[in-house]
């Protein structure tokens, strides 16, 4: 857990210029926009806790979930030959009821310091996330793959040092960015490609030091960036949340 706290501190320092600690205090804000999270269910066999990603196909199983170890033992249970011969679609639910369980606890490869995650591997220091593959220092995220230092992100691939990034690939040091690829040091951007050191850009390509899709030059950009970051960091420190998010910009809310 200490490593996750350190990682959160590092990312907030890099992105916002202020190191924030106590990640769980920010949980509501960090996980606020996730498409799915991790839920606790009870094993139908033992009552033990089963961490389950919030996706329809696991939720649709109702209570028929078990832990990973239990699942392997239950795999030994089988129907009788007579039951198999009589099996039909109409009778399947009833006939299969004593073997039809599954587990969302899928763990691959070597995992170090990963806590309260579901469906993951290989990982290091991942926390309260689902479908974490080949990632490290990720928390409150959903389906990060080959990511590091990502917080409150979903459907991200090869992203690092990001907070609240969604449906994106190859982002570095980004905050509130969605549907983008190959971007770095961006804040509040949507559908951007090869955009660097920019903020509030939408449907744009190949920009640097841009605000609202207009390149303003390094000096002016840095001046505005300092004000924006200070405002976000202050809000987070005082209220543990940031009222601005990429899905709300420009919709009158």
């Amino acid at each position, binding site marked *: 857990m200490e490593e996750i706290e350190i990682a959160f501190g590092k990312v907030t320092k890099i992105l916002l210029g202020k190191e924030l600690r106590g990640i769980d205090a920010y949980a509501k804000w960090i996980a606020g926009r996730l498409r799915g999270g991790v839920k606790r269910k009870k094993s139908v066999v033992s009552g033990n806790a089963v961490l389950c990603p919030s996706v329809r196909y696991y939720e649709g199983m109702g209570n028929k979930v078990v832990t990973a170890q239990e699942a392997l033992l239950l795999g030994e249970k089988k129907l*009788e030959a007579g039951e198999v011969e009589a099996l039909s679609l109409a009778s399947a639910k009833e006939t299969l*009821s004593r073997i039809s369980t599954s587990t969302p606890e899928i763990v691959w490869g070597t995992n170090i310091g990963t806590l309260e995650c579901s469906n993951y591997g290989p990982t290091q220091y991942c926390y309260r996330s689902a479908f974490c593959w080949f990632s490290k220092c990720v928390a409150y995220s959903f389906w990060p793959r080959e990511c590091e230092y990502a917080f409150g992100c979903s459907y991200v691939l090869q992203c690092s040092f990001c907070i609240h990034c969604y449906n994106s690939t190859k982002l570095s040091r980004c905050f509130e960015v969605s549907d983008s690829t190959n971007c770095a040091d961006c804040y509040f951007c949507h559908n951007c490609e090869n955009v660097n050191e920019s903020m509030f850009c939408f*449907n744009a390509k190949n920009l640097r030091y841009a605000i*609202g899709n207009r390149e303003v030059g390094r000096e002016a950009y840095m001046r505005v960036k300092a004000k924006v970051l200070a405002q976000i960091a202050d809000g987070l420190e005082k209220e543990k949340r940031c009222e601005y998010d990429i899905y709300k910009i420009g919709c009158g809310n």
Partner: protein
Amino acid sequence: MENKNAPEWVDKAWGSTCRTLLGGEVGSIGKFEEYLKRDVPHFRIGKSSISGREIVVGGEYVEGTKFISGDEIGKYALAAAQLNVNDIKDIDSIIEALGESVRYCGNNLIGNCSNATLANRLIDSNFVHCSYDVFYSKYVAYSNGVKYCEYVFGSEGAGKGAHFAIKGFESYECSRVFECVHVYNSSDCFYCANVENCHDCLFSFNLRSKRRCIGNLELQEGKFAALKAKLKEEIAGELGAKGSVQGILGIMGG
């Protein structure tokens, strides 16, 4: 938005998939649309503020959000001309300057994509219909979260290398799957959950490295083939007649 008139290629690909999985075609895909969409989070339809066209949008957009289509980006200009950097005091002043010119993108196709209808967030994918988050894949319909796959219908989380899947949830490196959840490195699986490295398995659960199983019971080749043919015929018959069939989640009791 209903879509009873899917493009011709969707019907052809659906026919190929049914022949491969069920041994024969069961009808035009329009009849199965509701079934294929069942248990798969559906996309949202928005309207392009430029052309008025209906487009597929993804993301947690709030009421009042305005969209454009990915092929209209050339016509789009953010109202940044009104933005004087010296006047920026805080985030609110930037948002105010951008005014109502902010548009989010739907029907977004990245890289080399073709034959995409009602699709969003595609990367290098072809022949995709009513789907989103499809990367490096072809012949995909009514699905999301699909990577490196072919002939995938009504599926979610079809990971690397799933081929010929109908209602495959979280399938990875597998071929010919029907109504399955968590099927890894497997082939010819019907109504299975949590199976890895398994082949020719029906109505089986929590198996590793098994072959020719029905209800987790391993069977002789001849016996298995006869029962499999009977069950496949029943599935195809019901699907063809009703346009829908009992799903794996229904069988598991959800």
